[in-house]
């Protein structure tokens, strides 16, 4: 018979999220930390919107940033309209609070997807990937040709301290923006989760699994892909709108391939197959990006390595891993299976440490100094064979643990 969740079980993740969002400002005081948290919120919305396409709808896009960026541009131009209208000004925009700009982002993103999406959605797979790649490049290049809209290299600036303020919700400090981000991230995540429960959400899974069969139950795959594409574009735009308010500047970079790649990276690291996967991915990748760049010049390399490690060793992503552990626990097999998994994790960690050490040492050889080593108070000598022996030992230990835990897993499966 059906295993339906009790209402409390279904509500729990939302109550916990709400609680976490309410507690964060009690624990955090520095503007820097608030900035990172605000960025995490933006990236959660962006990564989840990307997963509506890839994880839910089976459409691999390399141009999703177009809708994020256009949403951001839409929002920042409206922010300027609000500013131009002035506090006591006349007209519609004079009464439009900056707080609602993510809605403008949503509308812009969805409209853009509606305008360009139909020809894209004929096929999924490689054709779709190629076309979206082309779109991304086209829009990024095209943005340089319309400096009045996209602001050229420098982008479009604005000021979020304009327009009517509702309920005293000012947007001066990053800490103020936190409440804005918390509100919108919760709303957007809930909306995207609710979407997965609707008939269209389910049909988007069906088109992912088997587009051919879909036709024989009465639906052309293209229509379904198109609707999902519009929805995903809208939510990406909503994230863009949040970014516009957060940064008060939007540059053409936000439309480009790197930003699109970030969405794919976050979603894949977190896991495409579980709803909360991209949330985990967005948190991990954003924190890594933000923190590592303070400590090492190779931060992008490390994010890339994490991506590689996940794709190779945990293709279901971090969220998929969590889900596996949960199911094992439910079946009462966790005590039996966990040691094997932990061993695997430890081996990956050891090998990663070895890699980090090698990269930093090589970096030190070529640049003469190393931030990470300095921060850690280490003075390793890259020309000393002993240091390199240590690195080799790390790799060897990682390999050993990997073998042992693999044997353990196989013996117990």
């Amino acid at each position, binding site marked *: *018979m*059906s*295993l339906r969740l009790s209402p409390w079980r279904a509500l729990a993740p939302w109550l916990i999220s709400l609680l976490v969002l309410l507690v964060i400002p009690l624990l955090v005081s520095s503007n820097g930390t608030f900035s990172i948290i605000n960025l995490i919120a933006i990236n959660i919305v962006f990564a989840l919107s990307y997963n509506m396409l890839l994880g839910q709808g089976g459409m691999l896009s390399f141009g999703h940033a177009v809708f994020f960026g256009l949403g951001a541009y839409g929002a920042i131009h409206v922010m300027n309209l609000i500013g131009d209208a002035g506090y006591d000004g006349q007209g519609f925009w004079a009464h439009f609070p900056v707080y609602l700009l993510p809605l403008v982002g949503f509308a812009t993103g969805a409209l853009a997807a509606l305008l360009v999406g139909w020809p894209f959605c004929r096929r999924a797979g490689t054709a779709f990937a190629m076309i979206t790649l082309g779109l991304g490049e086209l829009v990024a290049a095209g943005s340089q040709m319309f400096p009045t809209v996209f602001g050229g290299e420098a982008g479009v600036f604005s000021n979020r301290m304009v327009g009517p303020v509702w309920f005293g919700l000012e947007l001066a400090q990053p800490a103020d923006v936190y409440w804005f981000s918390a509100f919108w991230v919760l709303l957007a995540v809930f909306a995207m989760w*609710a*979407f997965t*429960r*609707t*008939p*269209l*959400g*389910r*049909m988007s*899974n*069906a088109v*992912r*699994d*088997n587009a*051919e*069969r*879909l*036709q*024989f*139950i*009465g*639906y*052309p795959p293209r*229509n*379904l892909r198109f*609707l999902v594409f519009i*929805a995903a574009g809208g939510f990406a735009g909503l994230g863009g709108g949040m970014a516009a308010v957060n940064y008060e500047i939007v540059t053409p970079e936000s439309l480009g391939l790197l930003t699109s790649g970030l969405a794919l990276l976050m979603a894949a690291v977190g896991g495409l197959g579980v709803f909360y996967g991209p949330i985990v991915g967005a948190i991990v990748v954003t924190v890594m990006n933000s923190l590592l760049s303070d400590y090492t010049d190779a931060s992008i390399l490390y994010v890339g390595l994490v991506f590689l490690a996940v794709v190779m060793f945990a293709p279901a992503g971090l969220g998929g891993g969590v889900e596996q552990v949960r199911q094992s626990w439910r079946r009462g097999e966790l005590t039996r299976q966990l040691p094997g998994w932990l061993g695997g994790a430890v081996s990956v960690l050891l090998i990663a440490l070895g890699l980090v050490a090698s990269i930093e040492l090589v970096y030190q050889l070529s640049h003469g100094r190393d931030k990470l080593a300095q921060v850690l108070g280490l003075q390793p000598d890259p020309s000393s064979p002993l240091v390199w022996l240590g690195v080799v030992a790390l790799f060897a230990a990682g390999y050993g643990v990997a073998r042992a835990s693999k044997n353990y897993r196989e013996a117990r499966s």
Partner: protein
Amino acid sequence: MSHALTIDDLKKSFGPAEVIRGVNLRVEKGEVHAVIGPNGAGKSTFFNLVSGAFAPTSGEVRLHGQRIDGLAPEKIQQRGLARSFQVSNVFGNLSVFENLRCACFKQCAAGYTFWRPAASVKRANRRAEEVLAMIGLADLRDSPAGALPYASQRALEIGMTIAGEADVVLLDEPTAGMSNTETTQAIELIRQVAEGRTLMIVEHDMGVVFELADRISVLVYGEIIATGTPEAIRNDPRVKEAYLGEEAA
């Protein structure tokens, strides 16, 4: 217009290969019509033409008197013709129930709905539960369809085909690869499916065919060489030579 399907001079070529070479057939409303023939005769291709998977090279297909040849599969489905596949063709990552419910959305005009939960589309849920019970997979309701045992997946394949309440149903080798017990269950299911519907079925198992069919057509090298009651087909010398004889040998 008492024919559910009217097929006139239907032809299909893949490049130089002429696979369907002028099929004429009348399927009466409410009958169970079996299509038999040797491997590679074009049975699946014939179903593909009728259900819209391929457009015919020439010829006409009428469903309840209306032309459907060359229409897209979803258009044909909307007019009340559904089909199953020889190789199970389900939504692998969705649960059994979800597979069935997705197959029910069309008749509720709900597939594009994004403003309310799927659970609130009462009619689709009711129908999906009904079909779930009918195909005997209630125990596997929440299992991913891709992980089902073979026979269960075949049952789901049939379930998805009939979930949309089409009145003309084509089943392509529904019992292929099943054990004897599984086949007996499948026959029971197909009998229920045939209730109040027109059923066309491709089947290699002669036991199943003679048990279920009101009439049989024999397709050999893209042509129907005989159509008739099981009795007539059994005794038709051409059929014996072309097909049954071959089996006996």
